[in-house]
């Protein structure tokens, strides 16, 4: 075929378009994340969410705000839904609101917030302030942060749920604190969600909290899946074991996430990140084969030994 200037330009444009679209099509090929049911309603939700502790607290910095928006864009593009924040997380709430606004308010969003104040009376105005920061008509989930003033705040949240201004009620703790009280609340209060720390080395929740969540029909959100980056930092120079390849993982983060997600009582894990490639990697871990109980023990033992 004779190459004319016109055919050359057409071919060049086609090649450029193909090159531009290639990353998108590759990402589009990524399998959608697996979903689990929220026991109280049966609603399904992707098993990997997005935390915002430290990572989204970037203040008014326009460059860093746009980077957070890129992370949120990649999260939604990869099939993610739940974003979790708290009034305790500095500027994370307005930064999430900025990103949602810039992304055209994705309909996939499952908004998970917290109430964090020692004053019962200050709870409702704080929740309203958080809602304004996010720019959402109402939250999907509000949790009592770190069990602070939990009795009064739970009553507020139950009233909001009854009034239709909130869909789900939850309670949180982290780093293994106050599991006895958490267990008591899980037994006695009609909560939809519970959030606590659980990862490949912090496995106390397996003894009581996770089985109790199944028994009581409470959805479980797992925070600190990588111990705030400490585990991934510790393992960054260690090679992935060959036997991990059968799970289709390419990083320690994915292997450790699969450990968490393969527990049948876990509904969502919420790793936080500032990097687009990491959020894609996290969502990718929610698809494909999951470790069986024997493999879970092997992963945990291997990481603890390193």
């Amino acid at each position, binding site marked *: 075929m004779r190459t004319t200037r016109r055919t050359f330009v057409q071919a060049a444009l086609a090649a450029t378009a193909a090159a531009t679209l290639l990353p998108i099509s590759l990402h589009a090929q990524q399998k959608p994340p697996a979903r689990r049911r929220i026991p109280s309603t049966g609603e399904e939700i992707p098993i990997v969410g997005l935390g915002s502790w*430290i*990572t989204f*607290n*970037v*203040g*008014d*910095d326009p*460059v*860093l705000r746009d980077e957070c928006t890129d992370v949120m864009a990649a999260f939604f593009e990869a099939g993610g839904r739940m974003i979790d924040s708290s009034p*305790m*997380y*500095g*500027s994370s709430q307005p930064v999430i609101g900025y990103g949602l606004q810039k992304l055209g308010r994705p309909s996939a969003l499952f908004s998970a917030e917290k109430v964090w104040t020692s004053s019962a009376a200050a709870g409702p105005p704080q929740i309203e302030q958080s809602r304004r920061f996010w720019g959402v008509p109402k939250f999907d989930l509000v949790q009592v942060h770190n*069990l602070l003033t939990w009795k009064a705040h739970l009553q507020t949240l139950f009233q909001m749920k009854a009034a239709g201004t909130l869909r789900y009620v939850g309670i949180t703790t982290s*780093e*293994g*604190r*106050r599991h006895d009280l958490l267990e008591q609340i899980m037994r006695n209060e009609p909560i939809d969600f519970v959030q606590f720390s659980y990862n490949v080395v912090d496995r106390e929740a397996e003894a009581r909290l996770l089985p109790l969540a199944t028994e009581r029909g409470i959805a479980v959100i797992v925070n600190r899946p990588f111990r*705030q980056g400490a585990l991934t930092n510790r393992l960054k120079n260690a090679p992935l074991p060959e036997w991990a390849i059968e799970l289709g993982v390419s990083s320690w983060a994915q292997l450790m996430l699969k450990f968490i997600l393969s527990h049948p009582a876990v509904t969502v894990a919420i790793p936080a990140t*500032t990097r687009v490639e990491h959020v894609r990697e996290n969502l990718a871990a929610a698809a494909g084969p999951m470790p069986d109980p024997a493999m879970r023990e092997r992963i945990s033992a291997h990481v603890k030994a390193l």
Partner: protein
Amino acid sequence: MSEWWTYRAVNFLLFSPRVYWRMFELHNAALWPLHVLTLAAGLIIILLIAWRPGTGARWIAFILAISWIFVGWSFLWNRYATINWAVAYVAPAFVVEGVLLLILSLLDGLAFDRRGPAGWIGYLILAFALAGQPLLAPLQGRGWASSEVFGIAPDPTAIATLGLLLLARGRLLPVLLPIPVLWCLLSGMTLRTMGEPQAWAPLAALALAAAGWIWTIIRQRGSWPVA
């Protein structure tokens, strides 16, 4: 706070080092070239101490007062508090320090004529705050953009105040000490928790100042019968 013994410093760190240092970059960019003025003010303080330690005291306290109030409002309240809600409670302390200095300026309640070893330590700390602290950013590979400058950033302002108080005399001197001391402790702990090597700067300034005060106290008590 329940189970408070299980909390560590890292549990209270709400931001990453990158966000922290970019905050200084944005603050410097927003205020430039005010840095020239604040550094000139610092130089004027040194010249007044050297040549007019008695009559210039009122102006030294005034310059320092304005610096504290300005840093408290512009940096702590308007910028740092956006990523660290606890700083909203610290910013008023900077204004309190400024107001105390203003009162002492109006009362002419300070004299910057203390000399001897404590005074020399004071000069050393003051020189570090004005000329050394701004160099830490480029020396650590962060470039000049995130430099901390006296009268613009809290650390050099608090460190300079520690140095100045070693050079000062006055009945109300002790009321000026707690806020810069507490700030240096807080800043040093924050930097240390972030794993930043320059955590040594506010802590070393504090240790040097403490050595100066202890030396002064021992000397005063030792000379008590003679005086």
